[in-house]
């Protein structure tokens, strides 16, 4: 009996650990793998590819003649060329060590300036032809009613409409360019982020677009975990100045919208409108969230 309980407890601990690893932020993102560097997950080896996330609990194996370049959360870069097995935890130390000082950055700049010849556009025009004089019309003319380039989302109702009102399909991808097509929505005049989140299930970074949008860049959707989302919201709410109830609700909505927590902002705008139903500012602020 005691043995069975121990096994169940061990299983629970393992389940909790694996769940927490799902929820955790990535420690590194793989930038380049010249060979067959792999990460080991549950005893299985998975070849790393550009864009893969590495968690602090992961372990990686680098074979001979392989270069692996990782990007840290602070955007510094760690390059691994030597054969061996590395734990991500130990590599994390390299990220913090590689922060640059003002002096080293200055002397790097001096060295770079000394060692690079100064050319002129007149002599080498091909090197100076990055600028072009033409407008891009890669896509169409749909413009979202809300500034939805970035959306931070965990739960709650959130629909985003566009103008001109036209039923088009929406597509959700795994990456900003190319990437796997994860979801194709039915033609509609808006996108329901809550429904997308329900289909995606996993927290993480996603990219979406509507067919015919003006800006060819995909929009960023970050699905947060409950804990990190609540922490972020609490932090924002701390900055809200208390005035009247309606005003406070509006200000909260405004601050949340500024930080792209649109679903949460919508709730507070609605609250402000409920408290002062004749206020035109509250009305128009909330109306934008109505597709």
């Amino acid at each position: 009996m005691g043995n069975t309980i121990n096994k169940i407890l061990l299983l629970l601990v393992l389940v909790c650990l694996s769940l927490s690893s799902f929820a955790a932020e990535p420690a590194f993102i793989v930038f380049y793998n010249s060979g067959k560097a792999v990460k080991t997950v549950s005893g299985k080896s998975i070849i790393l590819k550009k864009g893969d996330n590495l968690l602090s609990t992961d372990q990686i194996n680098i074979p001979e003649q392989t270069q692996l370049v990782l990007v840290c959360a602070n955007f510094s870069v760690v390059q691994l060329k030597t054969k061996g097995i590395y734990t991500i935890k130990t590599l994390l130390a390299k990220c913090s060590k590689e922060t640059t000082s003002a002096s080293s950055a200055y002397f790097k700049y001096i060295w770079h300036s000394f060692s690079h010849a100064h050319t002129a556009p007149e002599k080498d025009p091909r090197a100076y032809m990055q600028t072009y004089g033409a407008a891009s019309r890669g896509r169409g003319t749909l413009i979202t009613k809300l500034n939805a380039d970035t959306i931070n989302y965990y739960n709650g109702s959130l629909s985003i409409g566009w103008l001109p009102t036209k039923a088009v399909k929406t597509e959700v991808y795994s990456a900003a360019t190319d990437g796997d097509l994860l979801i194709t929505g039915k033609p509609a005049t808006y996108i329901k982020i809550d429904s997308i989140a329900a289909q995606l299930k996993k927290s993480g970074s996603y990219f979406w677009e509507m067919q015919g949008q003006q800006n060819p860049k995909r929009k960023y959707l970050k699905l947060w975990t409950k804990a990190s989302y609540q922490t972020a919201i609490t932090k924002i709410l701390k900055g809200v100045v208390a005035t009247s109830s309606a005003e406070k609700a509006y200000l909260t909505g405004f601050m949340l919208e500024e930080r792209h927590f649109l679903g949460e902002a919508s709730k507070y705008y609605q609250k402000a409108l409920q408290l002062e139903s004749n206020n035109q500012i509250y009305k128009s602020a909330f109306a934008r969230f109505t597709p």
Partner: protein
Amino acid sequence: MFKYLFKRDTLFATLAVFLVMGMFAFLPINTHFLDPIHLALSDFDYNDLAYSKMDKNKDTPTDTNIVIVNIGYGNRQDIAAMIGKVAAQQPKAIGVDVLFNEKKDPVGDSLLLKLFSTNAKLVTAFNYTATNNKGYFYTQSINKGYANFVGEEEGVIRHFTPHLEEENLSAFAAQVVKQADPESYQALIKRNKLTETINYTRKADKYVVINGMDLINGKADSSLFANKIVLVGYVASTINDVEDKHFTPMNEKYTGKSLPDMNGIFIHANIISMIQSHQYIHHLPAWLMWAIAFLLCWLHMALFIKDYLENHIWFHLIAKIAQIISAVFFVYLGLLSFHQFNTQMNMTATLAAIILAVDVLYFYEAFAIWLHKKKGFKTIFTHGKHN
């Protein structure tokens, strides 16, 4: 002053100035970053003052040979309809200054594809630096030209490359002229210049602009396109709309933080105006500028030596005043030449020589005295008459 002009020391001191300049020029390192003025004004050309302060080309009349159709936020079907309306009026050429990077809606795409692949008067634009994707219609387009200019990214656009021989590609504006006015195009190619300086003659208000949506809806008279060069592209509706907008020498703020002032379509229009009118920007040859620099440095050196020997108390004051007056005067001369004759004079060597002259003179004096003591070299600096 003139009595020192033909002294051997004056000539040698002048040569020493150019020797020092040569030493600086041949240093195998880049020292531009040590110069805060260079950094601050890295995107500044003093010729820009001709536009912003001397009103160069301010009174140029509207170019009625070119008509611009503003696509606004029209989609591909709209753009195809605009081109169709224009093409029906038999213009000389139609330049479509729009990048269509990917496929979109089947109707709009097929309409455009038919136009680009069948109408020999149409010229499409593409991005030369896009290595993988030069545009959805790139392959099928009969005529195409790169819309790229030459300049620092986000910098002032002063140059363009008419033709890239190795790739056999032409600039968008050059390609449009090739269809509309082959003689002018041939004249451009015969100049055989890797880069041409753009002669900006007109701001946006000196070109006829038609709203594309008005054209589709029959609100604009399409007969004015007959026998004209028509450019189809985006024209910003407000000063703060910076889509496809660039900095040009015509910007009223010639240095420092400002908004870009001209849409790409108007830069192409200026290039076309320049090619058609044959009003190119000329550059005085380098050998002539060096000869002028040497001559002026020689004159300055004679003046400096005279004051150094005969009026030493006032030497520094006179030298500095002479340097300032010379700098202002020769910059003015350069601007005047650009303003009046579309000819750019590179006065850098002259200014550098005059600025270095005083310091090199000190060095030369010490060297001449040393040579005099050691080798009996005859020099005017042995008299010791610093009055």
